[in-house]
């Protein structure tokens, strides 16, 4: 019996992708994780310290307070997206799925902010909300709510909600598109039959459309989670690296940036920076695993 020749072509097919991916993604990630297990000793030599950096991050008040502040802010940031961006995106998708005339135009326009750079979006909104320019004041005056105007980005209790809403404004196109794609796939006969039976649009949505697009709801949720816990640009472009006021808009991305690169007179700390990155990695992986095991398992027959 002749042995099969070694399947060189499989190697050729796989090698470029695996090489680029390993070198520029996996290796740097591992490198960061190793860095998080090191620190400098008093003489300035780099030494292996095990999990000590992680311990410092969670037990030293100087580190744990800003970390948990950033963590809970990040949760809040995520909740705004889950409670506003995704439901409103779903609503827009349902409206667009009703075969309305000019639907493609609405779809194109509503998706426009999504294609813009976060930096640009952050700056544009900074101008619009800027008390010195007075755009938001003018608009609120026009609808008779002038005294509701606030320096939204400058107050501790409004900065993060405002930034979350800006982010929602920009990213709503993505859930809208994903929901729309799922809705379009629902057979027309199903919806027609329900309407003939006298079901209202509301009933149709709850009884037919929503159950059928549940897998997409899960995907949107996990995409939102990964995106939000990896966010940085918007806060940085709008509030700067100090994520003010008083760190009210600090999320893990900005906390990582400040820790790693330092700020103003604050020296950067690559070891603690890598530690923060390691914890972020853990958080994101936990979220994704919860999704895979809890959500996916219930919807066995669904594929991405």
């Amino acid at each position, binding site marked *: 019996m002749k042995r099969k020749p070694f399947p060189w072509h499989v190697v050729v097919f796989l090698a470029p992708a695996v090489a680029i991916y390993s070198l520029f993604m996996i290796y740097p990630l591992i490198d960061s994780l190793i860095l998080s297990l090191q620190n400098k000793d008093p003489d300035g030599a780099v030494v292996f310290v095990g999990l000590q950096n992680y311990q410092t991050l969670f037990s030293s008040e100087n580190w744990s307070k800003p970390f948990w502040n950033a963590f809970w802010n990040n949760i809040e940031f995520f909740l705004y997206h889950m409670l506003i961006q995704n439901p409103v995106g779903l609503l827009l998708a349902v409206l667009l799925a009703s075969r309305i005339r000019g639907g493609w135009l609405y779809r194109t326009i509503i998706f426009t902010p999504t294609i813009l750079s976060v930096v640009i979006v952050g700056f544009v909104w900074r101008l619009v909300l800027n008390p010195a320019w007075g755009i938001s004041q003018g608009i609120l005056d026009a609808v008779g709510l002038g005294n509701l105007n606030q320096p939204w980005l400058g*107050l501790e209790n409004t900065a993060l909600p405002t930034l979350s809403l800006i982010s929602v404004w920009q990213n709503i196109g993505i859930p809208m598109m994903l929901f729309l794609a799922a809705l379009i796939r629902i057979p027309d006969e199903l919806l027609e039959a329900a309407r003939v039976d006298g079901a209202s649009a509301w009933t149709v949505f709850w009884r037919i459309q929503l159950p059928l697009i549940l897998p997409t709801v899960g995907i949107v949720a996990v995409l939102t989670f990964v995106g939000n816990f990896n966010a940085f640009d918007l806060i940085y472009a709008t509030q700067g690296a100090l994520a003010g006021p008083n760190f009210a808009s600090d999320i893990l991305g900005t906390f990582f940036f400040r820790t790693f690169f330092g700020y103003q007179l604050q020296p950067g700390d690559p070891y603690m920076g890598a530690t923060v990155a390691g914890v972020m990695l853990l958080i994101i992986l936990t979220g994704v695993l919860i999704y895979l095991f809890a959500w996916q398992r219930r919807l066995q027959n669904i594929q991405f």
Partner: protein
Amino acid sequence: MRKWLVFLFLSIVVMGLTGSALAQNKVRLTIESWRNDDLKIWQETILPAFMKKYPNIEVVFAPTAPTEYNAVLDTKLKAGTAGDLITCRPFDKSLELFNAKHLDSLNDLPGMNNFSAVAKAAWSTDDGKTTFCVPMASVIHGFLYNRAIFRELNLQVPTTEAQFLQVLQRIQQTGKYSPLVMGTKDQWEAATMGYQNIGPTLWRGETGRQGLIAGTQQYNKGGFLQAFEALAKWRPFLPRGYQALAYPDAQNLFAQGRGAIYPAGSWDIATFRQMNPRLELGAFKPYTFGTASQCVINDHPDIAIGLNSASKNKEAARTFLAWVATAEFAQLYANALPGFFPLANVQYTVSDPVAQTFLSWRKECQASFRTAYQILSRNANPNNENDLWNASAQVLNGTFTPKQAADYVQSRLASWYGPQKGK
């Protein structure tokens, strides 16, 4: 699809070609700086003067926004992409760069003897033996005001705290102008133009500052606490929505004549001259207090320039640095950028009257500089300078009482800094 792929492929080929096509015959130096406000002046006045003298050297001024400068510079230095010449922040920040071998020693640079040891102190090692940046200028803190508004409202320039608050009240009563133009969104103005501006008089300048370093004085006692209390009195006079006003927004408000008094650093003079040449600028020095009548100004060594150790054009870079140490540069710089006062012991005259006013305070008052710059900000977390920004902004936002702010700054400093431990 195929068309697209062909296009992409061609793009890559073109990219490969253009990379090698850009050859140069001149030596080209790049200056890293945070002075983005001065871009035009460097491009149109200072650099042409140098390049006229040294036609074989081309110098490019490439500033980054002040708030991002340190992070961007650190990244570039680590990555080996930083420019040949590095604009140096004073004290620890640059010392850190020198210790990390990113900056060359400049002890043997011709012209270094034009600077006194005091002028060089902010850019020398702790033992004073090695200097690694050529000092360029110091800045002085104080207040700018709109003379047209003062004339219209018939106001006198205040010299004491009581007069200052009275003037603010008068402006507020007329309702036409913002009395005091400053925002707290970027945080640093509150500390730099607020706390560190009026504070030195209260903590008696160098006595207080060195007391902090020695551990004999605390941020939550005496003059340092009083400075937070004095700062809190500004709160009612700030413009509407000041919590969301960034530094450039405040500059725009004042430049457009919508506000009367602007807590300033002398570097703002040049910016306002450029933003609105018709603005009638005046200046008055930090006011004194009933309990502290000897004025102390914040005369802060602010800016210097050093040589990137990784530069490939060191000879040309040293030529430029030597030129920075000359009287020609001092004269040019002082007048191109009124409000930056050269540190070289050479003759120069300042022609801008407002800049002259600032300079004249050196004769009337004692001098000190920002408290967190020397030694106290060596720790990453908590960092004294960041804490001062945060606390000062919170005092103005009303989310901290002066006492809370002072305790916050002090307890965080004491958490790591030996001489302050337990205080």
